[in-house]
């Protein structure tokens, strides 16, 4: 029950409150995964800002930029939560929680790329 509540929050409690210290290599690997997600969010944000400003002033570039920035917000908003939930699971010796974020990201990035291709093909025509 308490765990269900934890899972709903964007900022779960400090993982150190429960369980035992796992092998330090797992802790560090979890940290690197978190940092990789943060960099993904920052790269998406940079790409979105770039789409808005570097490409000609059209509604298609605005749409593209906003889509990328929305993806960035979604990634950034869930990354700390994922890190804390993974760490908590490792400390309790439980299986790692399932996340749909990789699936969502793969599909959404593909959609954005296809959208970009179509919009710019229309723009050129």
């Amino acid at each position, binding site marked *: 029950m308490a765990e269900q509540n934890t899972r709903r929050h964007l900022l779960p409690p400090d993982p150190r409150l429960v369980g035992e*210290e796992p092998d330090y*290599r797992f*802790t560090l690997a979890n940290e690197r995964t978190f*940092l990789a997600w*943060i960099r993904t969010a920052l790269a998406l944000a940079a790409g979105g800002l770039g789409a808005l400003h570097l490409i000609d002033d059209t509604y298609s570039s605005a749409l593209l930029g906003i889509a990328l920035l929305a993806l*960035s917000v979604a990634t950034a908003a869930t990354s700390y939560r994922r890190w804390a939930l993974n760490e908590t699971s490792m400390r309790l010796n439980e299986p790692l929680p399932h996340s749909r974020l990789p699936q969502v990201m793969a599909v959404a990035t593909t959609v954005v790329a296809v959208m970009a291709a179509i919009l710019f093909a229309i723009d050129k025509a």
Partner: protein
Amino acid sequence: MSDSGDPLNARSRRKATGPKRIRRPLGPRPDNVFDPGLQHERTALAWERTAISMMVAGIIMARYAAQDAYQGIAVLGLVQVMLGGAVLLWSAWHYDELHGPLRDGNPVIHPTAARLVGISTLVFSSVALVLAVLFTLTR
């Protein structure tokens, strides 16, 4: 984080050994591989890459916001650059600091740094999204 009484701490060790100066906070020389797979170094590098990404993203936002005369948001971009710089310095310093605890088998987790970076990235992306929507609507 204060470990002044720790014999592995660099400063106290230097004092204890007098003129023979030891330049790194090393514990007893291990007889096996200290960090298989160089996990610690890879993590430190991941922190540094993230810090540099924060600075680059901050510069991009500051520049574009200033072009569109959103001065307040440009300042936020600069704050992100400074935050990235702070994380970069922290990770370099922390890389050295963590050798002792790692050899002693102490915890290596840092939720505060993760929280700081996670929240700042969320704020950054949200501000960028709001800026983009504002920019598109007011054109």
